[in-house]
């Protein structure tokens, strides 16, 4: 009961924040009805996906302060579970998604146990290493299609809510929006939960945290599992939305970093951070990419600018956009 109340408790944010959030929600709900290009719709879907990725990452990377750069392996597990189950056994999305999440979380416990013996840089590099190992294995594993990946069969009867196959993007949009809202409420409850507080104590000082009865190793593993569940869920969705997955686009290091970047840019360890980050980075990436990437001789310029922005943020305001908002307000509130 209290968990549900916590999920809906936004009372630590000033009214201004909630007004902006409410306006944003109205905009999101109405977006498909507004005039828009299909490119804008695709960007919007990307925004929701990366918001969810970032929210998940934020539990371990933001609240617990453990820089995880290997989230893509769990995107891959989610995406491949859905794809394999649909291709081979005709299993609908709503069954394969929870299975994928369970498999990913199970794998995260196995990996997490040794992983969280490491700290700081060592931890970050190790997360990359584990993710790359899994990607390499998938690339040579025939059962999942190797490096070529898998293509999902078109079932032909649109709209198909069971298998998530639609002609029009707004179906995907609303389903994802529902996931987004559920994810947001869950995180809001999470940051109010005992684990949420304990993780922030761990980030502050692990010795003090342990002296307060907190099993630091286990708490980190639990947060890692929550983060994993989020990205695996979106991974499953990604498989249905793209109809086509391969190790390179679901498990690459670039994706791992992008996920972390959303939260980092917006403000790691804050509720709105990942959403703010995604709302800046995703449109920038897709529009910069389409404007500049297409022109001869300018391939790469979008990512050059992107890299420069990342360097700038890291050097000037490591707490991200939300850190700037807090600096202006002169208060650190509403984490």
């Amino acid at each position, binding site marked *: 009961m*209290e968990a549900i109340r*916590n999920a809906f408790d936004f009372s630590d944010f000033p009214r201004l924040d909630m007004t902006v959030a409410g306006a944003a929600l109205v905009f999101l709900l109405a977006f498909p009805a507004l005039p828009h290009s299909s490119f804008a719709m695709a960007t919007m879907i990307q925004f929701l996906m990366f918001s969810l990725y970032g929210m998940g990452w934020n539990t371990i990377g933001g*609240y617990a*302060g453990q820089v995880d750069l290997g989230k893509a392996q769990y995107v891959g597990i989610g995406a491949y579970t859905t794809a394999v189950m649909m291709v081979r056994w005709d299993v609908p999305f709503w069954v394969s998604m929870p299975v994928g999440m369970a498999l990913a979380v199970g794998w995260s416990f196995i990996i997490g146990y040794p992983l969280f013996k490491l700290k700081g840089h060592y931890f970050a590099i190790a997360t990359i290493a584990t993710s790359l190992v899994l990607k390499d294995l998938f690339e040579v594993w025939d059962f999942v299609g190797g490096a070529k990946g898998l293509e999902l069969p078109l079932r032909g009867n649109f709209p198909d809510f069971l298998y998530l196959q639609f002609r029009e993007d707004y179906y995907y949009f609303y389903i994802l929006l529902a996931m987004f809202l559920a994810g947001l409420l869950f995180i809001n409850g999470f940051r*109010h*939960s*005992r684990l949420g*507080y*304990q993780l*922030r*104590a761990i*980030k*502050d*000082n692990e*010795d*003090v*945290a*342990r*002296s*307060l*009865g*907190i*099993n*630091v190793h286990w708490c980190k593993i639990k947060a890692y599992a929550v983060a994993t569940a989020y990205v695996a869920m979106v991974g499953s969705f990604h498989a249905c939305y793209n109809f086509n997955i391969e190790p390179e686009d679901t498990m690459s290091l670039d994706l791992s970093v992008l996920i972390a970047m959303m939260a980092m840019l917006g403000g790691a*360890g804050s509720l709105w951070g990942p959403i703010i980050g995604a709302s800046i980075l995703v449109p920038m990436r897709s529009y910069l990419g389409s404007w500049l990437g297409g022109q001869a001789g300018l391939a790469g310029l979008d990512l050059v600018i992107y890299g420069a922005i990342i360097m700038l943020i890291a050097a000037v305001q490591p707490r991200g956009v939300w850190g700037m908002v807090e600096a202006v307000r002169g208060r*650190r509130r509403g*984490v």
Partner: protein
Amino acid sequence: MALLEVREVSKDFGGLRANDRISFQVGADEVVGLIGPNGAGKTTLFNCVAGYYPVSGGQVFFDGQDITPLKDFQVCRLGLARTFQIFQASGDLSVAENVMVGAFVRTGSRRKARAKAEEWLEFLGIADAGGLMLSELPVARQKRVALATALASDPKLLLLDEVAAGLNAAEVDGLVKLLTRIHREKGLALLLTEHVMEMVMALSHRVVVLESGRKIAEGEPAQVVKDPEVIRAYLGDHLVSGENGHA
């Protein structure tokens, strides 16, 4: 039956013996001071008792249970809380939230944790600081936050590591009164290491004196300070035996 019994505890760091077969007890309604010159092994012993270090030899019993093999977080759950010399919580948590983390040892409910935190902040006279960040407070109040956090975990015994360090005379005085109240009104046993002798003398029912990792004396404060071995340990050999040199 003593609340805490330290039995023949030793701790080695490499070849260095920091604690050598130390034994003492703390009763359920006692305040015990652990004193000794710098490097006597007080903090090491503290860390062994609290499960922060594994001991090299000996046993620690708490509330009738052998806690020697337990980790620090397990020890805390049994009701043995501690403070750190340097209490640094720089990041994300406000004062009240810090104290709530302590309260979360006993409850999973945010509402109850908040109520408990507010109760302790009130008791320690820092209720007005609940919404601030720790770094915004002066040192004396930061120490009270550390106390409140440890107390919110509902301990039976509280280990205080140099809580008076860095405080001025008036602040030490306030702290002594506060700790007395905590002991009397809340019925907590206290074990404290301290450099500030007035504080140990004023609070402790019993004092354990360490030197070079060994226990050299134990008894009531007034007796212990007269013990020649304690005086020698604190002031050094040359002062006691060679007074004529300074006359």
